[in-house]
Structure formats: C-alpha cells, structure tokens
C-alpha cells in the first residue's frame, strides 16, 4: 500500500500545524528574551509568555502564576519530587508512589533513596493497573510529605482514581503530585476538584513541540513551596532559573488551547477508533489479551498481548506502522515492560505485547489498514512459532520444562 501510519502517540505527537504557525514569529521576529525588562523585544516576549501561562492554566483550572515552565515533564517530575522532599525535610521524608509510574518519577525516587533523603513506598496495582486509594491511606504515616500518583498511564492507558487520592491527601495534610502528561488535554484534569497540588505537563504529548513542559505548583490551600533544582537568576518565582523557551512556550499554550476547544469531540473520535481497532483485531484472532483497564482508560490507548508471537518480531512485520511493544527485545536494557509485570501479566505476555496510541491525525482508514496488517502478521508469525504449535498440540506451556 506504500503508506506510513503513525500510531505511537504516547511516545510523542506531531506538532499541529496551527501550533507551528503560532510559534514561528518567536524565532526570528519576536525573538526577545522574556526577562529583558528594558526594551520592546523583551516586553513582547514577556507578554507572549504571560498569555501562554493563562492558556495553559485554563486547561487545568489553575491560576496563571501557578504555572512554572520547564524543559518537559521529566524535569517537572524531578522538580516536584526533589523540590518538595528537600523543602519539607523537617516535616518528614516519606514519599508514596506506585510501581507503574513513569521512570521520571521512579528513578527520581530511587535517587533520593540512594542519597538517604527519602523513604519511598511503592504501592502495587491491581491486574488492570489501578492503585487502590485504601492502600494509599494505609501507607500514610506522620512522616509522609508527598504522594505521587500519575493521572493516566503511558503504557496501558489506565486512569487512576485521582479524585479519591486527592481527597485522601487533603484530609491527611499530605501534598499530592500527579504526572498528568498523558491525560492533560485529552481528558478533563481539574486541580481544584481533584485536589492536586503539583502537576507535571508536557507539550510534545499534545501536538506541541518537544523540549517544553510545565509544573503546576499550588499557591493557595495550601501554598506549596519547593527547593529549586536550577539556580541562576531566580526565574519562575525562584523555582526554575533559566531563559524561557519562548517559542516552545507559545506552542505549548496553543496546543493547550486547541485541546481545550476540541477535547470532547476528539476524545469521542479516539474512543470510536480505538474500539474499532480492538474489535477488528479480536474478531479475527484468538488468544489476544487486553492489558490495562477496559473502561477507565485513555480513549486513544490500546495495549494488546498476542500470545505465541514475540513483540519485536511483530513490530518488524508491521514495518510501515509505528507502534511500540513491552517486549524485552525492544528495550535497550533487554528487560520486559515493568508496567506489564506489575499487572501480573507475566513475562511471556509482556514479550508479546503491542501498544497502539491513536492520535489527532489518525483516521478510520488508518485503523482499518492496521487491523488488516496486524491480523496478517500475527497469523504468519504464529505459523513460525513453536509455542503456537505446541499449544495446538495441547502441550501446557506453563508446566513444560524448558532447556534455558
């Protein structure tokens, strides 16, 4: 067919042409440093940034001044967690998070543990990937200063019970951080009704440019303080020094504005495409398993395990389709997806998993093409698979003794 289909929108998204258009003047025409206080160029850039803060804040029902610009959600996660742990160290050092968090959160927690600066509880999840708010409640001690639970998971799309966790955190006077990178702009995220004190956001997951993100930091009820990671001039209310990426920020804001306007219709369209993809594949193949929650899930996310077919070999067969896999063979460290392991999916099904991430620029034609190709390749690879053969012969693969 000769076409390339991009269906890996959880990894990144293309920049929306409207976003690019909004950014362009800020490269070579209105190129001033937003911190230059004494001339037109600076004022112009500053005005653009101020407007951007407004637009981004609006998407999560925050105040403009509560938006701190960073280089991306990874930096925001680092700043939120390290910043809180350091500032509130006299109050306590216990952090609660979950095993399925993004590495930006998990590695940050591990670094703090190694440095002796925090004690971290990593909560388990159930087999659909949900954290139990009751587990959160039970884990809170008088030394707990931060709970960090993401809004929606990037691999399996499962949406955590953020509302309940927020209520719990407020009740116990513990700060609540949520990495909402995947959910913001796709589903309503309201820091007031959800009781979230810190939120990490990223532009490149919502059709904005890479290298630009933000951290929402609550200013009232309570006022959240942080120790900055970046020193050098005191930008962003002293929380994050460094010249602002004005074009990136303008793009980020435009992306947020578009998401706000189009969220409802887009979410409905994503869901329709996702369900068509899922039904189309499952109608033609057996032994296909859904990873993650069937309904509390990002509308554009589909994560399926195809028994007896290894993920990377399937990706190779789908060479004109961009998706990703939880297989060990696709990771640089040769470890299978830790998120799938945490679901109790088992290593074998982790190796056979494929993540489809639908986005704004996908069409029903894309979906139908992907269904056709996936079914074809899975069938072909099952014919090559000794496991499929053994399963058909009635061999119990779980109890078979493998010569490793």
């Amino acid at each position, binding site marked *: 067919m000769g076409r390339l289909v991009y269906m890996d929108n959880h990894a990144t998204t293309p920049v929306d042409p409207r976003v690019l258009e909004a950014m362009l003047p800020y490269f070579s025409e209105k190129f001033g440093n937003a911190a230059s206080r004494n001339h037109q160029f600076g004022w112009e850039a500053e005005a653009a940034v101020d407007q951007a803060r407004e637009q981004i804040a609006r998407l999560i029902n925050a105040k403009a001044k509560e938006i701190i610009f960073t280089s991306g959600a990874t930096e925001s996660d680092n700043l939120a967690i390290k910043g809180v742990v350091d500032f509130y160290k006299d109050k306590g050092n216990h952090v609660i998070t979950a095993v399925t968090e993004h590495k930006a959160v998990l590695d940050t927690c591990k670094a703090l543990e190694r440095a002796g600066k925090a004690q971290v509880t990593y909560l388990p999840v159930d087999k659909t990937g949900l954290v139990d708010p009751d587990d959160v409640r039970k884990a809170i001690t008088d030394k707990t200063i931060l709970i960090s639970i993401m809004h929606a998971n990037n691999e399996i799309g499962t949406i955590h019970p953020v509302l309940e966790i927020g209520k719990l955190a407020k009740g116990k006077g513990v700060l609540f951080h949520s990495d909402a990178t995947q959910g913001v702009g796709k589903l309503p995220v309201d820091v007031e009704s959800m009781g979230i004190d810190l939120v990490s956001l990223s532009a490149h997951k919502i059709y904005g440019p890479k290298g630009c993100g933000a951290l929402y930091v609550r200013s009232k009820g309570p006022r959240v303080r942080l120790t900055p990671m970046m020193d050098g001039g005191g930008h962003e209310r002293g929380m994050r020094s460094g010249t602002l990426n004005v074009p990136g920020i303008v793009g980020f804001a435009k992306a947020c504005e578009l998401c706000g306007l189009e969220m409802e219709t887009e979410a409905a369209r994503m869901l329709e495409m996702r369900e068509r993809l899922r039904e189309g594949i499952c109608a033609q193949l057996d032994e296909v398993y859904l990873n993650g929650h069937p309904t509390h899930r990002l509308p554009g996310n589909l994560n399926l395990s195809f028994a*007896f077919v*290894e993920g990377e070999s399937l990706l190779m067969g789908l060479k004109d389709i961009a998706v990703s896999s939880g297989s060990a063979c696709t990771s640089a460290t040769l470890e299978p997806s830790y998120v799938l392991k945490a679901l109790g999916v088992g*290593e074998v099904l982790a190796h056979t998993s494929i993540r489809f991430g639908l986005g704004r620029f996908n069409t029903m034609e894309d979906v139908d093409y992907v269904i056709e190709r996936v079914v074809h390749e899975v069938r072909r690879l099952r014919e*090559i698979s000794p496991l499929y053969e053994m399963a058909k012969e009635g061999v119990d693969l779980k109890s078979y003794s493998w010569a490793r």
Partner: protein
Amino acid sequence: MAYSNKVIDHYENPRNVGSFPKDEANVGTGIVGAPECGDVMKLQLKINDAGVIEDARFKTFGCGSAIASSSYVTELVKGKNIEDALQVKNTHIVEELALPPVKIHCSVLAEDAIKAAINDWKKRHGGSSGEGQKAASNE
C-alpha cells in the same frame, strides 16, 4: 535500531519453516530457550545413517534477529555431517547477519539449537552411526 538487509530477508522469507514428525527415527529435535526470556527456537534435523544432515526445519518465537538466526542455521547445516555442524559457532551467524551486540545472544541460542538437535538424534541412535563416522574420520 535498523535491521541489516540479511536479517530482513530471513525474516520476510524464512527458509525451511515447519516441522518433521518428532518420532521419526532419523529426526533430531532441539528446543532451546524459554518463553519467559522471549526466545524459543525449535530446530529439527533429518540426518541419514551416514551422519549427514539431509534436511532441516525450524520454528522460532523471538525477535527478528532470532528468527533470522534460526532460519540461516537451517541453510548452513544442510549437507554438513554432524561433526561439521557441531563446529558451527555463533560468531559465524553474527557475521553473516551483521547482528548488533545487543542481539548476539540470538546467535548463541541458534548454536545451542544445533547441538540440542544433534544430541537428540544421537540419543535415538544409541550413538552407533555417529560413532562409526567418528571412528572413520580418526583413521
């Protein structure tokens, strides 16, 4: 990670996919790897009484490099006697397929598969024909 053309070729046009009946006297079957590791190779060799590999079949659960390694091995060993086949080293496979360092273990598994298949055949033959061949080559 871009794949080498040879890996792609073996993946898209795998050689000798399939199975011989396992209980046939002149078939040696080797199954190596484990599903938990993401790699399982089944290699079957049809070996005549003179100890020469007449035909081969494979089935593999694993990445493109694993499939290519086992497919290549079926081509490599056809026509070899079992002593020569046992001399096949994973490095030959790595070189032929231009496997990157992170995929070298796939070639090791393929080498193990050859040994496992031959050992299985030897077990079924009580070592008789194989040893006769060995004795002859030592003279």
